[in-house]
């Protein structure tokens, strides 16, 4: 326990600025590191009682720096009076005189023995010493703690650079700037000593150092040195510049791409209308598939594409520069970028034409030479398995009223992997599937089959869309289920953070397709697992894995609460769409008081039945024993439950889950009365059995939508 001696308002409040100067940090890591640095510095200040958690703060980053500015930092820690607890009075004094134990404690606390006081605790009387702990200067605390905080920043990939490898960091540290108002906070990290110097844009400002007078001047000082330190400002300036340049082409707009803009923002220190060039390419390249053109521009060149009002690609591109130039310079830069893009497009066109010389149908045999996985054989073997699986799942779907073009599905499954042998996919691996679909279409394969091939790797992530057609969905499910079952069969299941074959993503994909496919795919998880393998042990593990991914989907994608998901899946976890509907219904009613009360009661019932089972009162559900003089609340509950049972069952069968749950909640008065007035575990065996049987029957009748006992209720 401690109490401040001097009040905070006696201290001067200062601004603190920390900047870590680095060689170019990978764009993908900057945002995370910027946020982490700010979080760490704030936590440090709070921990050391130098700032409140709500202190005003701002962070900055460019490829060459991470920085954080905090306003309202105390320049010194408060002096604190701390009470130290020592030995018990019994031990500390003998015959009224202090023992060595008391003297040792006084010495440790730095006070005279006669200054020791006693305190009464539940354990007895103890000695206490009141100690004044001198607050340290902020600069001193920061100098000691900052190196540790900086060293702890997480990097997806880091390096060492100094002799003896004293530290790892994302890239070599080039400078450190640390100011508390106008005073340097003296510390070292990565072989650099903190000072008040920073550096501007490499090209636009040059190599000369720049002194920052005080933390508040930081942003403006950098602006003069051609660095926009604030990420959001830079992003908006880039977007504005893109708009500005695009206006020179009538009817054009640039194609929105948040991820690319994000990358470009983290690749630049400066942005202005003179920092974007609009380049052109020969319109003959527009005969190449748009997917190929966009991939080359976006993934390989980091260019934004331009489209007309109808969304059609135009023969222009936008390059975002980490510099700005006068017209002559911009013309040179544009020319260079155009030259590179032309070469890239030429390559792509060469591959596109070259690949067409051998149609996909003739490539099926080549798949024998492409290994899918050592023990699972070639892609030809996989193709065989996926065809059979896809057709089997199609048959099931058709038997439930789905319309499936089985001929097209079979053709799609046969050709699905052939694009792995094409030069275009070897060059642009991210286009696998898409390239197959494009070639299939160009080679006269049915549109249904071509689309299914095109969509087979969808969804690539939880944010991605699912295949457009039922054939595409079945192919995508069969492909993934085959991979999962094959790997599980080899014992290569994901463990912890290790999932080298991305099996979780594959299973997430299956769940997402079942959940979101525009054309319903009426398959259960058991059916998919069962068809994917003949081995029963593997089947049950695959099924459990799919259920786990369904759980993940409900929580992470649908945002359902943990307990709702547990309740719903306990009542059935095979039909994905049904589980979603039930979860939504439970979430909709869970806030009502009656529902919460009934949930709590169900939990109680389950506990009681569990205890009964432990005590060996088995055979509960067999029949309800006849008892005379049944307690009126038991009779009421029995009657109410009986009356409700049929109604709830009917609603459940009609998938009217919300009304069904509302109906269950109407049991509350009878349930409450029963538990208020009756002891289930009655000493009389007959009575007890009849009560246990009633609870068993209620749980059984009303747990078809969700196991309410899983719902967490307040109190």
């Amino acid at each position, binding site marked *: 326990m401690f109490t401040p001696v001097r009040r905070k308002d006696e201290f001067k409040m200062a601004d603190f600025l920390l900047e870590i100067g680095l060689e170019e940090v990978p764009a993908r890591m900057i945002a995370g590191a910027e946020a982490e640095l700010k979080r760490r510095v704030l936590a440090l200040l709070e921990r050391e009682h130098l700032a409140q958690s709500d202190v005003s703060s701002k962070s900055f980053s460019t490829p060459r720096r991470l920085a954080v500015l905090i306003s309202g930092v105390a320049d010194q820690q408060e002096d604190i009076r701390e009470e130290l607890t020592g030995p018990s009075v019994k031990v500390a004094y003998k015959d009224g005189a202090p023992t060595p134990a008391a003297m040792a404690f006084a010495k440790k606390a730095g006070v005279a023995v006669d200054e020791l006081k006693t305190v009464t605790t539940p354990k007895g009387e103890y000695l206490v010493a009141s100690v004044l702990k001198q607050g340290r200067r902020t600069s001193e605390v920061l100098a000691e703690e900052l190196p540790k905080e900086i060293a702890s920043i997480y990097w997806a*990939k880091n390096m060492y650079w100094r*002799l003896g490898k004293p530290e790892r960091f994302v890239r070599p540290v080039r400078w450190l700037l640390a100011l508390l108002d106008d005073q340097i906070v003296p510390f070292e990290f990565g072989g650099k000593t903190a000072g008040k110097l920073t550096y501007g844009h490499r090209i636009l400002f040059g190599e000369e150092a720049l002194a920052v007078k005080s933390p508040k001047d930081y942003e403006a000082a950098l602006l003069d040195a051609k660095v926009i330190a604030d990420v959001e400002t830079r992003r908006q300036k880039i977007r504005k510049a893109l708009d500005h340049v695009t206006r020179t082409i009538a009817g054009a707009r640039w194609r929105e791409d948040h991820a690319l803009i994000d990358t470009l923002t983290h690749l630049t220190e400066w942005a202005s209308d003179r920092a974007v060039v609009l380049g052109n390419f020969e319109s003959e390249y527009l005969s190449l598939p748009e997917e190929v053109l966009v991939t080359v521009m976006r993934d390989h060149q980091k260019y934004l594409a331009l489209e007309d009002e109808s969304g059609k690609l135009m023969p222009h591109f936008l390059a975002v520069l980490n510099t700005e*130039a006068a017209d002559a310079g911009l013309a040179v830069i544009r020319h260079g970028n155009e030259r*590179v893009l032309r070469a890239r497009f030429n390559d792509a066109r060469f591959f596109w034409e070259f690949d067409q010389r051998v149609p996909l149908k003739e490539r099926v045999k080549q798949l024998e030479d492409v290994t899918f996985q050592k023990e699972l054989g070639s892609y030809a073997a996989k193709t065989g398995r996926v065809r059979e699986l896809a057709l089997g799942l199609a048959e099931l779907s058709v038997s439930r009223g789905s319309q499936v073009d089985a001929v097209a599905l079979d053709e799609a499954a046969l050709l699905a992997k052939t694009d792995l042998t094409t030069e275009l996919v070897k060059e642009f691996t991210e286009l696998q599937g898409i390239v197959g679909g494009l070639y299939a279409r160009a080679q006269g394969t049915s549109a249904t089959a071509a689309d299914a091939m095109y969509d087979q790797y969808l969804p690539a992530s939880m944010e991605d869309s699912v295949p457009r057609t039922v054939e595409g969905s079945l192919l995508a499910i069969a492909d993934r289920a085959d991979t999962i079952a094959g790997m599980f069969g080899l014992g290569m299941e994901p463990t912890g953070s290790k999932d080298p074959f991305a099996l979780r993503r594959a299973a997430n994909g299956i769940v997402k397709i079942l959940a979101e496919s525009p054309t319903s795919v009426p398959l259960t998880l058991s059916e998919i697992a069962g068809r994917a393998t003949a081995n029963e042990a593997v089947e049950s593990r695959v099924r459990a894995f799919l259920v786990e991914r369904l759980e993940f989907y409900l929580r992470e994608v649908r945002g359902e609460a943990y307990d709702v998901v547990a309740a719903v899946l306990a009542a059935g976890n095979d039909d994905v769409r049904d589980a979603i509907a039930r979860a939504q219904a439970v979430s909709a009613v869970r806030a009502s008081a009656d529902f919460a009360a009934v949930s709590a009661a169900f939990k109680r019932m389950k506990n009681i039945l569990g205890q009964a089972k432990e005590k060996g009162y088995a055979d509960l559900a067999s029949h309800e024993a006849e008892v005379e003089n049944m307690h009126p609340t038991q009779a009421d509950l029995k009657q109410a439950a009986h009356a409700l049972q049929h109604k709830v069952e009917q609603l459940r069968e009609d998938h009217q889950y919300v009304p069904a749950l509302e109906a269950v909640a109407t049991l509350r008065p009878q349930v409450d009365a029963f538990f208020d007035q009756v002891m289930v575990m009655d000493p009389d065996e007959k009575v007890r059995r009849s009560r246990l049987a009633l609870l068993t029957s209620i749980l059984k009748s009303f747990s078809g939508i969700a196991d309410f006992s899983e719902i967490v209720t307040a109190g």
Partner: protein
Amino acid sequence: MTAIREKKKALTFQELLFRLQRFWADQGCVLQQPYDVEVGAGTMSPDTFLRVLGPKPVRIAYAQPSRRPADGRYGENPNRLFRHTQLQVILKPPPERIQELYLESLEAIGIDLREHDIKFEEDNWEWPVGGAWGVGWQVMLDGLEITQFTYFQQCGGMDLDPICGEITYGLERIAGFLQDVDSIYDIVWAVEPDTGRKVTYGEMRLAEEEQFSAYSFDYAEVPKLWEHLKLYEAECLDLLDKSKKMSEMDPLALKRFPVLGAYELALKCSHVFNLLDARGAISVTERVGVMARIRSLVVGVAKAYAAQGELRSKEAASGIAG
């Protein structure tokens, strides 16, 4: 294309090389000649792969023709080559201003950075067969990757200490950029001073591209290549086996023990593997296995090289002490 600037006298291919070599020589680099065994990249030359090992500082630069049989296009593709030329600069330990020095080298070849867009974009380098990797950037100049810039972290599976900065210039790309030509074969290699006649890259190298593409893709005899691989591998393994006795060797035998010879044999294996690969003779299943075999040679050599260096320096120290 419209003329967009008053064309400065663009550097010829050889002038480009001269200027870069001059620049790095002025920075204290020893200019080495290209290594005379086939390599797939400048990194594989012993001047990089072996010299980065151990504590001894190194500053060296050399142009290295690099063969990648599968990249051959019979001379028909204007951007791809069976054999291209890298300028490799090795700086161990890397100087503080290594990036700035690099940018100065661009100025030295006539690139006015204020008129261009330059970005250092993350690109980490890895040569699994050599147990070697590093982190770094691809340097983009107006959207063109002109240089791979790497801080070597490991080589032969061993941590480097000190680490090494490696700058690899793609000379054909840079020359094509400077001269603003769309085909590598149109690059002016040299200008005859008397007549002003231009000697092109095509004139110097097209026949090689045509014939080596044909050799790699159509003629190379697969059974013989496998045989070569086996022989080179066996001899390399034999040397590596003998290298285990280095600690028992007398100083003369130790310094003469041909670890460098073993490395050449390992490089030969790597090149034969690349040929087999271009020939389509290695199935994906086999691939992993053969690569593992070559990896054990290359990594084995690196370890032997490091051990030899350590033994020799120990010996030198004891010599001084004695």
